[in-house]
Structures are given as C-alpha cells and as structure tokens.
C-alpha cells in the first residue's frame, strides 16, 4: 500500500473525515487543522510498515494525528497557564444542553478553549489518556494536567449552560 497511490487515496478517503474532526479539536483554526491532517497522513503513509497490527488501525492513525497536533503546538511554543493545585468541583451539565448542539457547534466550542485547557481536555476527556501519559507527552506535571482539565470542564460547562439558556 505504501507505494500505491490508489490504495493511499482509498485509505485517505476512509479516515480523512474522522481524523479531520480530531485535528479540529486540537487546532486553533481550521487552517491549522488542515495542516495537521496533511502532515499526519504523510506520516501515516511513510510509516505504514511500523504498524504492528496491535490495536485498531484507526486508533493507530488517530494516535499519529494527536502526536502531530501536539508537535504542532510545541513548535508554536504555547505555554500552559500557570495554575495552582486546587481541585475544583466537577460541574454537572444538562445532557439536553449538549444534545441540542450540533457536532460543529461542539467542535467550535472546544476550539474556543484556551490552548492549555484544550489539549488536556481533548487528551484526557475525549481520547482517554491518563494524566500520567499526558504529563509525559507534554512534559508537564501530572498536577498541572489535572488542574487544566478541571478548569476546562468548568469553562465548557459554563459555555454550554449559557448557550442552552440563550433564546433560539
């Protein structure tokens, strides 16, 4: 498949939409997301022989996209907001409020998160990484990862509630 343009195209078409959604969650802008998607698929095709057939192929591609997004951020030297070790209570949110929003609106919502919040929230809450893994991948303390996640949750809940209460 590595050398076949036809199969590469098929693979791209099969996974591009899902992976673009992943990239949108991590990127600052849609243009950044397109760059990450492009760079990620180039890595997929050039490192295809490294796939060990352990776990799902989609998961392997997703991991590449996430890593590419993280490298993209690191290149841009983003910095986490300095935080303490406070543990904020988890905010409940109405399920109907989220259900009433489209995927695009939810992606836009996450895109508006500050960079530090966004990355940690995406990695922990959506992708399912542990705080230890996030700390290792981002080179931060685990406590920093936890506090970023907590703040991200609070910010998102506030935004969802606000949007839900807005007149249609």
């Amino acid at each position, binding site marked *: 498949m590595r*050398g076949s*343009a036809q199969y*590469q*195209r098929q693979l*791209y078409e099969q996974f*591009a*939409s*899902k*992976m*673009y*959604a992943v990239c*949108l*969650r991590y990127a600052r802008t*849609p243009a950044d997301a*397109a760059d990450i*998607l*492009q760079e990620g*698929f*180039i890595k997929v*095709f*050039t490192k295809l022989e490294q796939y060990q057939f352990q776990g799902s192929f989609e998961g392997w591609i997703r991991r590449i996209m996430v890593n590419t997004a993280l490298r993209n951020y690191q290149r841009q030297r983003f910095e986490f907001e300095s935080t303490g070790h406070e543990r904020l209570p*988890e*905010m*409940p*949110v*109405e*399920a*109907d409020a*989220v*259900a009433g929003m489209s*995927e*695009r609106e*939810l*992606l836009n919502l*996450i895109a508006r998160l500050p960079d530090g919040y966004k990355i940690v929230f995406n990695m*922990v*809450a*959506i*992708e*399912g990484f542990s705080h230890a893994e996030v700390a290792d991948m981002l080179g931060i303390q685990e406590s920093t990862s936890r506090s970023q996640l907590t703040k991200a*949750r609070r910010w*998102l*809940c506030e935004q*969802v509630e606000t949007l839900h209460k807005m007149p249609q």
Partner: protein
Amino acid sequence: MEQYSNIDDLLRKRLYDAATPPPDFVWPNVEQALRKKRRRFLFWIFSAFGTAVVTFSIWFWLNNSTANHRLATLNTQPQTTLTQTETINAAAAADNIATPQVTENQAIGTPETPNAVRSELPVQRTRTPHNTFQASSHPVVYQNKNTPEQGRPIVSNLKFQMPGSSENHNSRIISGAADPESVQLKSIDNQGLTTSELALNISSASTQQDALNTLPFSFNPLLFGAKLTQPAGVPFKIIRRKKANKLCYDFGKHPNVWMVDAYAGPSFAFKELSTNNPEFQHYLERRQGTERRDWAFNAGIRGTLMLEQHFMLRFGLHYEQMTEVFELIDPKSINVVVNYHTTYDANGNPITVADTIGVSYGEKYFKSYNRFGMLDIPLQLGVELRKGRMGFNINAGFSFNIWFWKQGAYLNPAGIPRYFTPGGKNTTEIFRTRTGLSAIGSVQWFYHVQPKLRIFAEPYFRQIVQPVNLQSHPIGQRYGVGGIRFGITKILD
C-alpha cells in the same frame, strides 16, 4: 426530563467518532508531498550510486597511475651488472623452471605495455646449492622484448604451483634491478641442474621451504600464503598482478570505429517567462507565481563515429520530458451554478431560461501537472581523451525537434485556469507544434567494463533557441533543460 451528567462523557460520546469532511486541497498536498519523498529517495539512491562509481574510479585511476610511476622508476634505474653472455635473467629462469606449469609467458614493463605493476613486495632470498645452474642449459624464452637488456628490469608472468597444492598462483616477477651477487648465474656449478631437473626438484620437494630453496631466484612467500622466515636482503621484487589492461579497446589499431549508446537519467527544466508589453507584467507575475518546475527524465539512443581516435560525430534519437506544477489557490472564489432550460413556443422558436440554482463561496483550489515531451534528433561533435580504461569526452551541437506534445493547464490572462492540452475540451492552445532547434552541450565520463563495452555518466545542458509558445500569446516562454545521462556504450568492431 433533565439529566445531569459529566461533560466529559457527553462530549466524548458526541465527538470521539465525529466526522467532518476535510478541505479538498489536503489530499493533493499529501499526494504531492509523498511524490516528493519518493523522488528524494530515488535522488539519494542515484547520488549514492554515482558517488560510489566516481570514488571507485578515482581510486582505480590513482592506483593505476602509481603503478605506472613505479614501473617507470624501475625502468630508469641504472643497472650495469647483468650481461646476456654470462647471465640469464632470473625471471627467465623462473619461467623455465616452472615450464610444466606455465601457461602464459608475457614480458611487460617495456614501453609497449607500461601498465604492468600492480603491487610489489620485497623478496628475501635463501641461497642453496640449487640456486645456480648453467644458463645455456635452458631453452631461451625471452628473445625479443623479453631479452634482458643491460640495466633494464624484466617483468614476466608466472603461473606457479606449490608442492602439495593443486592451486595455481599467478605472479609477476620483475628481475634485473637487483644486486649482482644475487642474480649472476655462473657456469656449470656444483649441481648443474637443468630446467626439467629443477622443476622436478620443486615438484618433489616435501615442504614449501624446500621448494623455495630449489628456485634459482627468490620470491616473496607471502604472496603464496606460505609462512616462512627468511634472511634479510632484497635482491628482487615480485609483483603480483591480476590482469593487464586487456579491458581497454585499442583505438590505436582501430582509429575509426562506430559506437552506439543507450542512456536515461533525470533532468530538470529551467523556464524563462518574458513579455515586452507592460500591460501584461502583472499577468506574467501571476504566471510565475502559479507555475513551478519539477523533476523529469530523458532517454535516448545515439550512434557515434569515432574519427582518428579522438574526434567524434554523434547523432541519435533523444526524448526529453519537462514537468511543471501549475497550482492556483483562490481564497475568494465564488461558484455560481446556472441551469439553462430550452423550450419551444407554439411557433417552434426556442426559449432559453437561465435558472441560478446555486451560489457557493469559498476557497478554490486547482492543480495540474504540466508535462512537455520532446523527441529530437541530436547532431553533435565531440573530442575524446582516454587514459587506461577511463576517459572523458566533450560534446557540443544541435538537436532538431520532430515531435512536441504537451498536456496541462495554465492561468489565462483573465485569471482563469485553462487547459492547453491539444484536442481536449475547452482547451486553449498556446504552444507551438514543434520546439525547433536546440543547442546542446555535454561532458561524458566513461569507463571500460569490457574492451568493447563502456558505462558512462554524462551531464548535459540543452537550450531551446526559440520560445515554445505561439506568437499570439502575450507571454514568451523559453526553456533550458539540464540533466544527467547514465548509459552504456557498445563499440561496434
């Protein structure tokens, strides 16, 4: 009913498998990047191969030159101790001794065959009663150029077989450039052995040391893998040599021969856009901004007539491809879809109704690989210089285009991408049918792998004299092509 839940779970359920179609331009970019990586990989492979060939060739050249210099030094050393009447060259004796095993005797080291020496090692000699014998008892092998001259070393090939071994050893021996004591052969001595007797001695020797002691000359046993300790003294030098320069074609004997080449290699086009009309200056800049060159290739066959060893007349059939990438990104594109309905009234007159069914705004992306293929008949004159198995030639001349095909797209003066492929739908032809005359220059480096077979690498440059576009097009488009040809040459003799 209101349900409260963790926002993590809610968003994970909605977003983990979310899908959003990516922009259309991503895949072409991925495809192009992969193509570039492949080309880069091939480029490095070619480069590594070329570097290896050049390195080996330089090493071989230098090694050959060193050997020639060494032999020349030997040839010019003043030696006065040997005379034909009272001595026989030890190498000749060696050949005679080994006569039953000798399959080839060729004296070199004379000016006719200067490239004789490959390597040399000092030889230590062990004197035994068998070391001397009567010269006249040997059939003389060296008569003409092999005849030992006073003060000149003799070089000979010797195929030698050690006792107890069936393996043949090829060796080259230079003799005569040694101290007189060790080479002067006396009259009938205490043993008075003849050639056959000496050969018998060798074959009947029980050990390698015994066999060495049998010889009337000394040689380096290390050349034969023997582990012997011998006393000091360097009377002779034995030079092992694989083969002479038999892989060189003798152009001296055949100064006028035909040769045929086949070659292929990468090439790169250099484009120059120009206009004399200031009104089209902006358009020219947009053309330059949307078109970029890319790697292509060349291939061909060529016949060569060698004249007087060094001059060449060359002609053939050469195919050249030029590749460019046309890429246009319009961030403020407006696409209007209009549907035309044609009906007829009672009188049969057509009534066309235009119905705008959609307007889309956004970024427009257009990309095309523009390819130009040219088939030419080149005619060149060249000069060739050779040394050993290698050499180079310089060629210059013209080529006449006989076929010019093109496909791709360009930005027209209105800022709209248009195809220029002849024969296609909605195409605008802007290029000439033939490219006309081109000037070509090249430098070829070659290496003889066989007497009549060469491999070569040939960087070249070609300039198309006239612009390739039609005169009606406001932008002049000229091309030069640089590249390298890798190929083989067969000498037809």
